[in-house]
């Protein structure tokens, strides 16, 4: 297990290096001069040159990349302001370092993504298993066709409708907002309930279908039949034998879906005006605040890589064949 974690962490570092380099060079591929932003109205070429020097833009791009990476660990004092380690750059548009802003926005996005995941895993896997258990019956048909319809509902379509129906017109639920969990857990839950549900609709529908089909597949497995041949009850066979086997494909898909979950969380933030990383990324694009954008991208990538390591570690808990080899 330890060797596994060490190996995966090293792999993650390499992946993040690639992503950071890619993002950094993309930064310079855009026909835009960051120095213009701090130069003001009467910008003389001399002023621009000074700003270029202050920002380190007069160095070649690889050297700038090297500086960027080193400053993550050492911090750096920009002329515009101080950026202590971990320094992911300095946002000239906001006049503050990138990292504290990221940390400020992270809890919203994390609450949204993890809560949404909990919702679609609970409901999706639950209904999928019920459909598999009752396959061929009316319940199965209802769940299956409902999941087909729901899997085509986009967040930015459902979100405003839900807001209009449940919040503005009928006042059944609170206006979505983010209250830190540590401040008030109940308000945290109420504020995020609508975003969670809206974010997880498509996922729920897909996981219903996936859980149903993998369960039905598992029920055909020979070892599941053996368990039945031993006289174990159908409930035991279903929940102990078939369910255990169907976890593997579900966890695999979950690992792949984490990226789109984070993407979905960002769209949800935009839909419900929640101040998370997604909003931050969009705002940075409109303000051409490239250091901030770069920070968000790198940080999101790191989050996805981290979640994937957790998912891979989960395999070992599910399948002893992975554990021992």
């Amino acid at each position, binding site marked *: 297990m330890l060797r596994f974690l060490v190996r995966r962490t090293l792999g993650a570092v390499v992946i993040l290096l690639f992503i950071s380099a890619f993002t950094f060079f993309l930064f310079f591929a855009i026909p835009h001069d960051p120095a213009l932003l701090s130069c003001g109205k009467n910008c003389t070429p001399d002023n621009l040159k000074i700003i270029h020097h202050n920002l380190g833009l007069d160095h070649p791009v690889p050297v700038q990349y090297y500086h960027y990476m080193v400053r993550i660990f050492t911090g750096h004092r920009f002329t515009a302001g101080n950026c202590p380690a971990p320094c992911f750059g300095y946002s000239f548009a906001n006049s503050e370092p990138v990292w504290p802003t990221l940390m400020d926005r992270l809890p919203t996005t994390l609450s949204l993504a993890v809560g949404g995941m909990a919702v679609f895993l609970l409901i999706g896997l639950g209904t999928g298993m019920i459909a598999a258990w009752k396959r*061929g019956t009316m319940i199965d048909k209802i769940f299956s066709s409902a999941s087909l319809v729901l899997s085509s509902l986009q967040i930015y379509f459902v979100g405003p409708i839900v807001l209009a129906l449940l919040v503005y017109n009928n006042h059944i639920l609170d206006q979505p907002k983010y209250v830190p969990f540590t401040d008030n857990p109940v308000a945290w839950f109420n504020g995020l309930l609508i975003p969670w549900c809206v974010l997880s609709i498509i996922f729920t529908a897909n996981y219903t279908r996936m859980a149903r089909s993998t369960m039905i597949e598992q029920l055909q*497995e*020979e*070892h*599941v*039949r*053996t*368990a*039945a*041949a*031993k*006289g*174990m*009850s*159908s409930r035991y066979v279903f929940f102990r*034998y078939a369910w*255990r*086997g169907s976890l593997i494909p579900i966890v695999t898909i979950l690992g792949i879906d984490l990226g789109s979950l984070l993407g979905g969380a960002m769209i949800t933030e935009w839909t419900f005006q929640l101040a998370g990383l997604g909003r931050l990324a969009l705002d940075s694009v409109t303000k051409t605040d490239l250091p901030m954008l770069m920070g968000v991208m790198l940080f999101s990538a790191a989050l996805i890589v981290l979640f994937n390591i957790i998912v891979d570690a989960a395999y070992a808990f*599910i*399948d*002893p*064949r992975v554990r*021992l080899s």
Partner: protein
Amino acid sequence: MTTMTKPEEDAVPAAPEAFLSVRDLYVRFSTEDGIVKAVDGLSFDLERGKTLGIVGESGSGKSVTNLTVLGLHNPRTTEVAGEIVLDGQELTGASNRTLERLRGDKMAMIFQDSLTALSPYYTVGRQIAEPYVKHRGVSKREGRARAIEMLEKVGIPQPKLRVDDYPHQFSGGMRQRAMIAMALVCNPDLLIADEPTTALDVTVQAQILDLLKDLQQEFGSAIILITHDLGVVSNVADDLLVMYAGKAVERGSVRELIHEPQHPYTWGLLGSMPRLMSDVTEPLTPIPGAPPSLLSPPPGCAFHPRCGFTDLVGGGRCSAERPVLPDGRGSACHLTDEQKRSVFIETIQPRLG
């Protein structure tokens, strides 16, 4: 349960007295292509402590028959008619709860491929103990002790350590032993072994068969041994039943079937079996053609399209009239007893060497 009218020509054997008695068993699957007659009017008996070998090609209905005995067929797509009586208890109409109580306790099954038939997610010990804990109502600790005892009985070295291993940590032969231990953990009266040695090395095959024989002597179980290998059954079984296209075509003791087989299909099976003593240049004589589709089996004798002796019967009887399998020793073939004997002695036996 639906009742089906049974064809006139089917002989009804004597009233069931045996430990396991199967009477006029019909198993039909509805598939998208139509109805598959997987088992078509099968009858046999089995006494306690005896071994019945069921021989036939793939798709002849051997495995389906035995899954039906255990009630493991899919009830939604399968139609079962006929009688299966185990120790005086009717099984075909029995509730799922009744069958669950019998499975693993009074009747148990050993499957062909122990790698896929054992769950990769639980330890061997847990899988062996499960039916014991359930049927005997003992604690998990007692179940584990019993699992160790059973592993020792089937010849696994260091059973106290191996009980916590997962199936993939066992070799093929050891897995099959573990599967036997699992099947025998409650001392079942009926043990169905579905090609228990097919996936194993030849040397391990003999060990497994010996083990089954020893355990049978110890527990007095009745065994049904399903195989396509006449060599395997002839060493272990008392009686043989040859199946073709869902029907029994020949029945008799092992001696009778090996030394004076009567049915052209049995001749074919014997002819396609390699023999150690025969010359390497001597070609095997496989049965021509392929097993018939069970969606639309040939009319009359299902074997007639592949049979080389239909001319001897003449009059197109083979393709028109379904031959009857008599009670006891006999075969379902239109050849007369005299013809069967002379054809076997004159043409078949010399070829077998």
